[in-house]
């Protein structure tokens, strides 16, 4: 009897461990949500299986793909818990001439040459200017989650060791690394933004830092009450940044006083996506599914629009809105695309000019160019939405077999 009891206990314990570690709502592995870039008619995007994929925008054919997976890739092991696919890509490929710069979840920054990758040569092909470097401790634990920034000959990388790194873009040499900007969380998951000769970084521990782009020395900082969820955006001399306390903050550069925060009472959820600013109006998406248009000077709401999923329920806005000419494009997590005409008759009423659904979940940054919107879905497919013709092409699979 006792034996049965003990065996039952062992089985229950094992079952429980498996159940809780793999059940929905438990930890989710890092899969990546790389953004899309289009340059010289080539679409560059990171896939969910850790590859950089180059696709011809006209023919929609695969030009090349290159796996960033390292030989020492970590797996979930016994637990389905948050051990990551080491090559998970959260950054948007950054193009400069023939080189593509991209960061990975295991803390590596790659410079890939489009010709060398097209010929499938061994990596890194130094004669083609290719390199790979680790940032952080180099142990592969210091994830790069946010988009990188580039200015002149330098690349700026936010790293999960809480520092910003400046790399020389020809050889990947380290120029400087900042002090730890987030001692509490020891992670930086927001992008550095360049304004003049200064980098601006927001942190989870409620700071905005201004760093010298040349030396990485702090020049100014602003302290808030709650952590910042989004990367900062600068318009004029004002920084706009979303917060975990369900407000959007506006801070004058150099000031230690809050300019305004929106809304007066907290919104329905975090302001996770970075806002965009145009003609004195801040457009910001919230995880409560609403798109807000706010006066940049005063923080007063002009209009708001509730985005929804296919069942009419609010759907979070995870990806930052994008401006294309006079069009504002918003894609919510359920994959519904909203196009607002900012110069049209309905510009001040917050009514979309056109909506469409790609039918896949979206968390990645997307880009828009020449009437086309390029979106990477969480189903590892690339969607191209033709706004001018109000059409959607067949999704392009980003899987290794495609």
């Amino acid at each position: 009897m006792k034996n049965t009891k003990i065996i039952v206990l062992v089985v229950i314990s094992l079952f429980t461990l498996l159940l809780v570690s793999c059940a929905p709502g438990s930890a989710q592995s890092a899969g990546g949500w790389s953004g899309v870039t289009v340059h010289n008619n080539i679409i560059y995007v990171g896939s969910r299986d850790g590859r950089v994929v180059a696709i011809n925008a006209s023919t929609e054919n695969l030009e090349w793909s290159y796996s960033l997976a390292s030989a020492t890739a970590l797996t979930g092991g016994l637990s389905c818990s948050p051990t990551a696919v080491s090559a998970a890509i959260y950054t948007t490929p950054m193009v400069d001439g023939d080189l593509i710069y991209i960061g990975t979840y295991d803390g590596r920054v790659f410079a890939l040459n489009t010709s060398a990758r097209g010929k499938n040569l061994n990596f890194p092909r130094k004669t083609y200017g290719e390199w790979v470097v680790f940032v952080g401790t180099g142990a592969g634990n210091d994830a790069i989650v946010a988009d990188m920034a580039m200015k002149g000959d330098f690349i700026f990388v936010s790293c999960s060791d809480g520092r910003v790194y400046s790399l020389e873009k020809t050889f990947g040499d380290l120029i400087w690394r900042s002090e730890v900007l987030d001692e509490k969380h020891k992670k930086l998951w927001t992008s550095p933004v360049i304004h003049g000769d200064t980098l601006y970084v927001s942190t989870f521990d409620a700071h905005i830092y201004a760093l010298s782009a040349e030396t990485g020395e702090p020049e100014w900082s602003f302290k808030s009450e709650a952590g910042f969820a989004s990367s900062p955006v600068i318009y004029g001399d004002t920084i706009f940044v979303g917060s975990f306390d369900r407000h959007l903050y506006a801070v004058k550069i150099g000031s230690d006083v809050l300019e305004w925060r929106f809304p007066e009472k907290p919104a329905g959820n975090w302001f996770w996506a970075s806002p965009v600013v145009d003609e004195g109006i801040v457009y910001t998406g919230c995880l409560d599914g609403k798109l807000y248009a706010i006066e940049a000077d005063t923080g007063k709401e002009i209009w708001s629009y509730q985005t929804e999923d296919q069942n009419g329920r609010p759907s979070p806005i995870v990806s930052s809105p994008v401006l294309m000419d006079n069009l504002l494009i918003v894609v919510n997590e359920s994959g519904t695309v909203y196009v607002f005409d900012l110069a049209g008759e309905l510009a001040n009423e917050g009514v979309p000019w056109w909506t469409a659904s790609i039918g896949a979940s979206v968390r990645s940054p997307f880009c828009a160019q020449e009437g086309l919107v390029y979106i990477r879905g969480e189903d590892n497919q690339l969607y191209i939405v033709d706004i001018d013709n109000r059409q959607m092409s067949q999704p392009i699979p980003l899987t290794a077999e495609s």
Partner: protein
Amino acid sequence: MSFVELWHLIIGNPILNVLIVLSHVLFGQFGLAIIALTIIVRLVSWPLTRRQLKSSKAMQDMQPKLQELQKKYGKNKPKLQQEMMKLYKEAGVNPLGCLWPMLIQFPIWIALYQAIMSALATTPENLLNLAHRLYPWDIVNQAIPLSSHFLGLDLGQTALQAGALGLLLAIIVGGTMWIQQKMTTAPSVDPRQESTQRMTTLMMPLMFGFFTLMFPSGLALYWAVSNIIGIITQYFVTGGWGYLKFRSPFSQH
């Protein structure tokens, strides 16, 4: 509403949000929040625990009589089982009595485990998913994201990644679990069962020590604290170390 949504609504989200509030109140120390919540859960489930311990104590008190039965009917298994069941019935003890309270507590442990994993938000996906499980309380949203660092450990990393400290944590988890098991597991009256039982008592702590190395340290901290509280309550309720110092008569041969 799906089962997962219902689960989060009734059990998962309340525990998660309380954990985050505790973290905010306890100086932003998530490790302290885990310890505090483990104590709170132990207090809330105290009636069940007490029943479980009493049942275990009753089994302990019956050992001399069970051993007498073993001597008397050792060679006649069906008769031995029959007499044992009779004895249990007379004493008003259900041999599975200490199992059911534990089973009832499992949903709470699962929710606690999930809350720890969710609150740690070790990957960007986890952090984003967390947004939909938080209450609209200022204290909760101002506490996010939580710091996962506690006593030199990153509670979001596996103990294996944490090096020597992680190994120490695995030893503590395994060691405390072994002590707790030894205290509560009544020795068997059957030599073969006794051998299997001894093996199981050793296997469970070894397994959990191994799990400690594979799972985030936050969970290992919870296991360690839970085991230590279990040992303390066991000590005071049953009045001593239980079967910890008990030497099985079969091990002498």
